[in-house]
């Protein structure tokens, strides 16, 4: 696995932020000047890839593609994979991504100014398409297997992992690189801000994302990229790979309801499908990484769905979005990485800023302070606009 997020530029930095409950949220005056209702955002350092990655391979990368290149580089290194291996085997790639707004906007600005499409340069088209991350990474890493992008709003990264799992489970692929990527630039988030969906607790950026807390007032946009390498057990054992965990359940569903307002039934059906596939009992789950984004409605419905699943078992729950903000298209993948880090190091990262429960979150066992705990099985939820839901269950691998 590998990651590049507002919590850190690699796994160890991110792990330490998760453990210490460090927020990656900040205030961007540029957004206010541009007309945003909220200036809050995840703060990421722009990668410098010039000199590190060949020009032709680099110039097709949009912002989120640069993050995804780095998270995938780290994931491949940790999985003991190099280009030589990938070139001589049929490894696939399925990434979650649902926009590439900056590239499209910059191209349109250039055409308007110059009245000439040639002057966009050759990288623009490869940065602009929704499949930008897939097409670039498949080229850079010489991948020869399945190659497509999943666009499923804020569940994109989770569905990508779920589909990678199915491709391997059904015997179509031995290895699929899965992940999610999310651009952070303000141009990509203006229309979302326009829905008044973002927190306006601008005086306290680190306290603004407060999933499940009674005083939550909206989400905070964020991004980056996360990558996991999925592989058949046989292939992983043969290569002597460091097996971090085993996907044992993938649930999916659609609300069949409102485009942005969630409900209980859709997420619950996704949860139950994943549970049924995994064959485990609710009491076997050691940790639930909630989707909870800090919006009043979304968290309420998810709390009800989790309560409906767990009841009196009181499984530990936290939303790492309290630290990261909402990593949107990337979130499903990054939250698998965050949870795998917790599983690896036996702790539950805190749901920071959870100070006062509301009627629904009071029924859950929300972990507000870092908890030392062995995790053998975790469940991760992701939900998105249009009522798309995804649930992944991962079990620690024991040889």
């Amino acid at each position, binding site marked *: 696995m590998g990651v590049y997020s507002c919590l850190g530029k690699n796994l160890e930095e991110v792990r330490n932020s998760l453990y210490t409950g460090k927020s990656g949220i900040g205030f961007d005056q540029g957004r206010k000047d541009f007309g945003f209702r909220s200036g809050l955002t995840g703060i990421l350092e722009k990668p410098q890839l010039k000199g590190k990655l060949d*020009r032709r391979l680099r110039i097709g990368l949009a912002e989120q593609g640069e993050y995804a290149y780095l998270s995938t580089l780290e994931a491949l290194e940790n999985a003991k994979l190099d280009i030589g291996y990938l070139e001589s085997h049929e490894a696939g790639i399925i990434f979650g991504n649902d926009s590439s707004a900056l590239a499209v906007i910059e191209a349109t600005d250039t055409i308007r100014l110059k009245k000439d499409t040639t002057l966009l*340069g050759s990288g623009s088209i490869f940065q602009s398409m929704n499949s930008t991350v897939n097409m670039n990474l498949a080229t850079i890493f010489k991948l020869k297997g399945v190659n497509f992008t999943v666009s499923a709003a804020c569940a994109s990264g989770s569905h990508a992992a779920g589909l990678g799992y199915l491709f391997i489970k059904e015997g179509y692929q031995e290895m699929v690189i899965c992940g999610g990527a999310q651009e952070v630039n303000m141009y990509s988030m203006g229309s979302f801000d326009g829905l008044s969906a973002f927190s306006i607790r601008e005086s306290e950026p680190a306290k603004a994302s407060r999933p499940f807390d009674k005083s939550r007032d909206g989400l905070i946009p964020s991004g980056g990229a996360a990558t996991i390498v999925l592989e058949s057990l046989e292939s992983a054992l043969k290569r002597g790979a460091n097996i971090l965990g085993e996907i044992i359940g993938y649930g999916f569903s659609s609300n069949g309801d409102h485009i942005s307002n969630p409900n209980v039934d859709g997420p619950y059906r996704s949860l139950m499908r994943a549970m049924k596939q995994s064959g485990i009992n609710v009491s076997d789950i050691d940790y639930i990484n909630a989707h909870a984004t800090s919006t009043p409605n979304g968290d309420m419905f998810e709390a009800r769905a989790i309560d409906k699943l767990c009841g009196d078992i009181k499984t530990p729950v936290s939303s790492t979005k309290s630290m990261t903000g909402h990593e949107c298209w990337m979130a499903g993948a990054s939250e698998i990485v965050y949870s795998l880090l917790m599983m690896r190091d036996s702790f539950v990262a805190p749901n920071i800023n959870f100070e006062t429960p509301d009627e629904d979150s009071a029924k859950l066992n929300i972990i507000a302070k870092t908890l030392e705990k062995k995790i053998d099985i975790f469940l991760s939820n992701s939900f998105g606009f249009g009522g798309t839901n995804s649930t992944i269950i991962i079990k620690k691998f024991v040889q």
Partner: protein
Amino acid sequence: MSATSTDEIITKVNAFLVDEFEVEPEAITPDANLKETLNLDSLDYVDLVVVIESNFGFKVKGEDFVNIKTFQDFYDYIITKVAAK
């Protein structure tokens, strides 16, 4: 066109080629082959059009590249175009 401005153009061209196509400055000599030295593929020619436009304010037509083999050909082409402006 004065010798100084010709030199200035060549210096400017070499600088943006080194920056855009990430080659060592020493690789660029008047007689060297432009395409091979810069390792240009069909997409790279689009970027060459962009850097010329942003540096000299005119747009190269694709067919103009047909007769440009060496860096000297390239300099001569640009010098002629700049002089004609």
